[in-house]
C-alpha cells in the first residue's frame, strides 16, 4: 500500500518551493476522492519505498470558512494520510504556530518544517527546535527551500517518520478540534519557551509611543522633525567621510598615477587618469552619503516607523491617486531614486505602481543636491543659499504631487490600503548594516556601468577632435551644445552649460566634473569663475532645469525594468523634459521681466 504524505501550510510559506524540492519534476495534477478540486501530487522514492506526496491548498485555519480550508478538511476525512508535513514561515512563526498546533492535534503523525530560516536568522529570530518539537509533539526542522538548506535532513525525517508509525486509518482521525482560544494561549506559552524574537518593544510601550507619533496634531510635524534629523545625521556623518574619500583618492592619484604620465602616451594618460579616474573619483567620493541614506532608510523600515508615516500621509496621498506608501517611496527618492523605484514592488496594483514610479524621479536626490549645494554657495550669499535649496525641495515635492494629480485619472490606484502597524523594533546594527549593504551593492553594481561609460564619454566628447581646445566649442560636446543652444537660451542656459546638461543625463554626480572639464577649472577656482559666467537668475533657472529634466541613466534603467514598459519610460522622460523647460522658462522670463 502506497504511503501518503500531505503537505500543509499557510499561503506564502514557500510550500510549493519545498514541494518541488521534494518531488522534482514528477508532480502531476490529479483528483482525489471527497473533493472536487484538482491537487498537485507526486510519487517519490523515499528510502526505497514509493511514497505519494500531495500538496494541499494553503489554509489559515482548519475550522475556517474559506473554500480552501473546506477542501483540506474533506481531503483529510476521505483519504488516508500517513504523515502530515506542516510547513511554516519562520519569519512569521508567531502568527503561524497556532495552525501548526491545530494540525498536530489531529491525531495524525506530523513533521513540522520551518521555512525561510535564513531570513528569520537575518531578522534576529532564534529558535529552540527541541522545545518546539516537545510542545508540538512532532519533529521540527529548519530549512530554506529557496536555497536548499536543511532539505535533505527534512526528507530524511519524513522517511524516518513513515517507517516508524503504522499506516493511519481515517476512522482513527479524531475530530478533536480544540477551541481556538485555548490553542492560541497554548501557542503563546510555547512561543515564549521555544522562540526568541528580536527585541520588540512590548505592545504597551509601542502603544504609548504611537500616542505621540500618531498624535492627530503633533504626528505630522514630528515626522518632519524626524526627517530633518535624519538628513542632518547623514550629512554630518557623510561630510567627513566624503572628505576622507576625496583625500584618499587624491593621494593615490599623486602617488601611483601621476608617474604614469611619463610612461603612457598623452591621450591614453588623459583618458585613463583625467577621464576615467577623475570622473569616477567625483562619483566615488559621494558614495558614503548614498550609503548612509540607504542605511537610514533601512532603519526607518525595520524599526516600524515606515507604516506610521504611511498612516499619517495616506489621506493626502489618496487625493492624488496615490497611497501612504507612495509618500514613503518619494522620501526614499530624496536619498537616491533607484532604491525608491525598486521599493514599489510591494504595490500590487499596476496603476498605483506606475503612478508612483512616475513621480519618484522628481525627488531631489543626493546627487542633484551635490550640484545645487555647489552652485548655490558659489552664486548666492550665505543667507540666500539655504533659501534657494529649500525652494528647490519645495519645487521637488510640488512637481511630484502635480504630476500625480495630472496623471491620476489615467493611472490611479484601485488597490485597497492594508498594512500592518508592527510593534516598534530596535533593529540591530548588524541587521541594518546587512540590509543597507545589500541594497547599496545592488545599486552600485548597476550604476557603475553607466557612470564608467558616462565619464569615458565625457572625456572623449570634450577632447575630440584633437585639434580643438579641450572642452571648447569646437569639440564634439561643444557642437552638441551648440545645437541645443537655441532651445536653452530662453531659459538662460548658454552653450557651455548645455554641454554640462548633456552629461548630467548620464549621472548628476558627473555634472561638477563636467563643469570642471568645460571651464578648465575646479573647486574654488571654478566657483569663482561661475560668478562671472552667470548671475543668480540664470543659476536658479539652471538648477530648476537640472532638478526636473531627467533623472540619471541608472534611474531610467531602473524605471524601465520596474515598469517593464519602454512606452512608459518614454512618457516619463518626455514629460520631465517638457515640465523642466516650461518651469524654467516661466521662472527665467518672469524674473527678467521683473527686472532681476
Amino acid at each position: 500500500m502506497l504511503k501518503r504524505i500531505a503537505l500543509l501550510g499557510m499561503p506564502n510559506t514557500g510550500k510549493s518551493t519545498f514541494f518541488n524540492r521534494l518531488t522534482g519534476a514528477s508532480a502531476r495534477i490529479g483528483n482525489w476522492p471527497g473533493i472536487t478540486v484538482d491537487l498537485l501530487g507526486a510519487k517519490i522514492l523515499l528510502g526505497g519505498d514509493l511514497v505519494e506526496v500531495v500538496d494541499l491548498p494553503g489554509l489559515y485555519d482548519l475550522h475556517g470558512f474559506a473554500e480552501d480550508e473546506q477542501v483540506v478538511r474533506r481531503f483529510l476525512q476521505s483519504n488516508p494520510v500517513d504523515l502530515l508535513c506542516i510547513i511554516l514561515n519562520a519569519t512569521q512563526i508567531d502568527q503561524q504556530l497556532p495552525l501548526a498546533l491545530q494540525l498536530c492535534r489531529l491525531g495524525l503523525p506530523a513533521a513540522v518544517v520551518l521555512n525561510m530560516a535564513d531570513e528569520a536568522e537575518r531578522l534576529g529570530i532564534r529558535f529552540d527546535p527541541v522545545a518546539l518539537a516537545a510542545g508540538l509533539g512532532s519533529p521540527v526542522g529548519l530549512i530554506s527551500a529557496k536555497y536548499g538548506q536543511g532539505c535533505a535532513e527534512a526528507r530524511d525525517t519524513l522517511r524516518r517518520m513513515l517507517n516508524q508509525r503504522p499506516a493511519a486509518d481515517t476512522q482513527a482521525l479524531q475530530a478533536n478540534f480544540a477551541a481556538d482560544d485555548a490553542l492560541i494561549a497554548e501557542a503563546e506559552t510555547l512561543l515564549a519557551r521555544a522562540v526568541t524574537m528580536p527585541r520588540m518593544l512590548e505592545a504597551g510601550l509601542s502603544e504609548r509611543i504611537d500616542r505621540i507619533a500618531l498624535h492627530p496634531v503633533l504626528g505630522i510635524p514630528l515626522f518632519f522633525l524626524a526627517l530633518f534629523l535624519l538628513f542632518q545625521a547623514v550629512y554630518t556623518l557623510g561630510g567627513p567621510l566624503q572628505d576622507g574619500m576625496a583625500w584618499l583618492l587624491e593621494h593615490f592619484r599623486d602617488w601611483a598615477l601621476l608617474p604614469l604620465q611619463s610612461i603612457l602616451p598623452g591621450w591614453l594618460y588623459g583618458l585613463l587618469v583625467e577621464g576615467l579616474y577623475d570622473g569616477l573619483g567625483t562619483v566615488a567620493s559621494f558614495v558614503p552619503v548614498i550609503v548612509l541614506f540607504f542605511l537610514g532608510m533601512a532603519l526607518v523600515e525595520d524599526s516600524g516607523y515606515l507604516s506610521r508615516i504611511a498612516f499619517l500621509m495616506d489621506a493626502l496621498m489618496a487625493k492624488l491617486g496615490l497611497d501612504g506608501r507612495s509618500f514613503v517611496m518619494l522620501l526614499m527618492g530624496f536619498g537616491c531614486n533607484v532604491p525608491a523605484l525598486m521599493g514599489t514592488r510591494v504595490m500590487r496594483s499596476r496603476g498605483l505602481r506606475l503612478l508612483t514610479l512616475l513621480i519618484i524621479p522628481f525627488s531631489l536626490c543626493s546627487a542633484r543636491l551635490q550640484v545645487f549645494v555647489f552652485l548655490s554657495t558659489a552664486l548666492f550669499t550665505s543667507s540666500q543659499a539655504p533659501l534657494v535649496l529649500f525652494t528647490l525641495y519645495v519645487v521637488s515635492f510640488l512637481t511630484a504631487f502635480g504630476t500625480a494629480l495630472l496623471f491620476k485619472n489615467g493611472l490611479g490606484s484601485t488597490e485597497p490600503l492594508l498594512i500592518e502597524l508592527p510593534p516598534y523594533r530596535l533593529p540591530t546594527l548588524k541587521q541594518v548594516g546587512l540590509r543597507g549593504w545589500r541594497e547599496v551593492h545592488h545599486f552600485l553594481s548597476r550604476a557603475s556601468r553607466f557612470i564608467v561609460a558616462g565619464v569615458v564619454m565625457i572625456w572623449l566628447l570634450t577632447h575630440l577632435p584633437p585639434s580643438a581646445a579641450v572642452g571648447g566649442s569646437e569639440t564634439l560636446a561643444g557642437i552638441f551644445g551648440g545645437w541645443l543652444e537655441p532651445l536653452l537660451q530662453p531659459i538662460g542656459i548658454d552653450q557651455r552649460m548645455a554641454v554640462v546638461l548633456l552629461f548630467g543625463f548620464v549621472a548628476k554626480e558627473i555634472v561638477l566634473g563636467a563643469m570642471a572639464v568645460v571651464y578648465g577649472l575646479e573647486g574654488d577656482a571654478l566657483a569663482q569663475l561661475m560668478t562671472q559666467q552667470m548671475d543668480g537668475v540664470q543659476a536658479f533657472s539652471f538648477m530648476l532645469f537640472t532638478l526636473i529634466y531627467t533623472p540619471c541613466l541608472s534611474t531610467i534603467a531602473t524605471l524601465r525594468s520596474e515598469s517593464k514598459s519602454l512606452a512608459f519610460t518614454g512618457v516619463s522622460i518626455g514629460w520631465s523634459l517638457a515640465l523642466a523647460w516650461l518651469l524654467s522658462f516661466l521662472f527665467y522670463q518672469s524674473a527678467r521681466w521683473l527686472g532681476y
Partner: protein
Amino acid sequence: MTMVRLSELAMGQPGIIEDLDAEEPFRQRLQALGFRIGKQVRPIRQALFGGPLQVQVGSVNIILRRHDAAQIYVWAEC
C-alpha cells in the same frame, strides 16, 4: 447586539467579525492579516483629514481606509 460596519464602530468599541463583503484578492489579504469570522476587532484611532483607520485584530494592528473598512461587518454591543 447589532450588526454594523467596522467603519461605524466608535474608537475603542470592540466588534466580532461576521462577514467580509469584499472582492477576492482583498478578502484573502484581510484573512491573511487576521480578519477571520468570529474574531474580535477594535478601532483604535483615525487619521486626520479622513485618513485611514487603525484597528486592532487579535494581537495585530492594521491600517486600512474607511471605505474599505465599511466592507467588514461586525456584531457590536449596543
